[in-house]
């Protein structure tokens, strides 16, 4: 087994502004000369530290983290499960083969609430270790207190990364006067910017999160019961990288997003309920693009938000067939 000697990926949940991270609903990592989905090949075991911060005891911390893990485990279409291994005095960023969750005092990261890092087997892409730290430079609460960030909500987001999920773009933001962004609304726990302090709305998984975890760890019947939409986005005949494509199901109002992820402008949105869907395409303008793509990626932002002018039918256990979408410059 060859282990990477450095942390391969870092995902951070920002209080006001997104930090560098990777793309979309699941991470792709190079392994053995190909790109594979980042995932655990066995039930991940995790330790929690006994460190405390004002307002959060060790028991509070462990309880909030346990509830967040349980929320992901409760997704009925996913097999993901986690195992608490116990408490530890190790720091959550040590590359020691143990996955650790705990507080870390990082006042230098003044816009990062929490972050997740990984150690990956570079031959298989399997996760070996994943640590989560919560920045104790911020005020935390497990009871939804005003002016304090909700630990369970932030843990839910970070455990999404811990499980292999990237960021979702299902959210709306506005620029703040002092810099950074403020969330107006979101419809995914995996949106890269947190709700304001005091909110506990991030404790509930949304359709986009559920589709994401299902895509990585599907139950045996998912491939026969759910479907997908795939297609290609172009602008002036050229493929578009980084278009945010959202499938809306009018039967329940759910939305699941995906991105065009390659130089062909291709996208695929999986784990969708069968039936008619509306497809909406927008540029990634509600968070920094490096919340989703590497900083060197040439993400196209100069096009108008649009709807596909036909109803896209998701077949049960199949794909819609390629949907061609031509976007128009602003």
């Amino acid at each position: 087994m060859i282990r990477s000697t450095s942390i391969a990926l870092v995902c951070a949940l920002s209080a006001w502004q997104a930090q560098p991270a990777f793309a979309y609903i699941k991470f792709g990592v190079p392994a053995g000369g190909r790109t594979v989905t980042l995932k655990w090949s066995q039930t991940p075991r995790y330790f929690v530290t006994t460190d405390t911060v004002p307002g959060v005891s060790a028991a509070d911390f462990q309880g909030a983290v346990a509830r967040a893990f349980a929320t992901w485990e409760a997704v009925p279409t996913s097999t993901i499960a986690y195992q608490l291994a116990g408490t530890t005095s190790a720091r959550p960023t040590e590359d020691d083969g143990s996955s650790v969750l705990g507080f870390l005092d990082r006042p230098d990261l003044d816009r990062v609430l929490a972050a997740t890092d990984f150690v990956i087997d570079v031959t298989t892409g399997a996760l070996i270790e994943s640590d989560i730290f919560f920045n104790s430079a911020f005020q935390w609460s497990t009871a939804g207190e005003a002016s304090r960030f909700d630990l369970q909500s932030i843990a839910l987001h970070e455990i999404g990364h811990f499980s292999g999920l990237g960021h979702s773009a299902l959210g709306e933001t506005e620029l703040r006067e002092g810099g950074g962004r403020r969330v107006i609304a979101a419809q995914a726990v995996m949106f890269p910017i947190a709700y304001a302090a005091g909110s506990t709305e991030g404790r509930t998984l949304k359709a986009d999160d559920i589709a994401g975890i299902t895509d990585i760890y599907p139950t045996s019947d998912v491939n026969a019961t759910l479907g997908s939409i795939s297609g290609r986005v172009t602008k002036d005949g050229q493929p578009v990288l980084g278009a945010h494509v959202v499938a809306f199901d009018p039967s329940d109002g759910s939305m699941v997003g995906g991105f065009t992820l390659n130089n062909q402008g291709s996208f695929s949105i999986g784990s969708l309920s069968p039936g008619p869907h509306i497809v909406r395409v927008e540029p990634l303008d509600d968070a920094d693009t490096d919340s989703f793509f590497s900083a060197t990626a040439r993400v196209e932002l100069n096009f108008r938000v649009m709807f596909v002018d036909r109803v896209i039918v998701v077949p049960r256990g199949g794909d819609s067939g390629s949907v061609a979408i031509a976007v128009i410059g602003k």
Partner: protein
Amino acid sequence: MTRRRAVAALAVALAVRASAVRAQPVIVPGRLEIGIGPQWTGHAALGSRNANETTGAGSPFTLFSSSTDLASATGLEARIGVRVLRRLEAEVVGSYATPSLVIQTSADSESAPGVAAKERLRQFTIHGAAVWYVPARRAGARTAPFVTAGVGYLRHVHEKDVLLAGGTVYEAGAGIKQLLVSRDRRRLKGVGVRADVRAVARAKGVAPDGGTHVSPAVTASLFVRF
């Protein structure tokens, strides 16, 4: 007589007064009827749904709105009817049409132009119906007004043979049969035309709200009787 009235009451909520029932001859001869003809079904509004996100306070933020319709469509309807009583027939009716499912988007929070996204479906129905010939003093000898009602199965299929949804169809209405040819002593006892207007209620199917939605329907058909 009591049984006939009960059947009539079940057949359709039409003002057929028992006191007006008179012993008039039913002019449609024969026991078995086979008919086929075009059917037009009107538009049905299938409900609306917002694409909502959630604010930090838990209130909805509408990204855009949508409303779903099943467009009007012309299709084909075929029926086989058997006389059960003197004025009552039981029918098995099948229909096929290709209405468009239309989802209109509007009020996009980022000013995306609304669209009327469409996709053609195939709609199959099969249902059982009762036809009650209404005594009518002014009807001609070859004319038979009737009321009808039925219930059956609805199936919406996408063009790729994907079953989108099943549901239930309820129909009630009235019409008239006009006999063109009548031959009492032959195996083929009659040929005629039929026209009827019905209210068609489609429950579930592709309706996003899972509800029941009513449309008008008009059918004209040619029938033969044996």
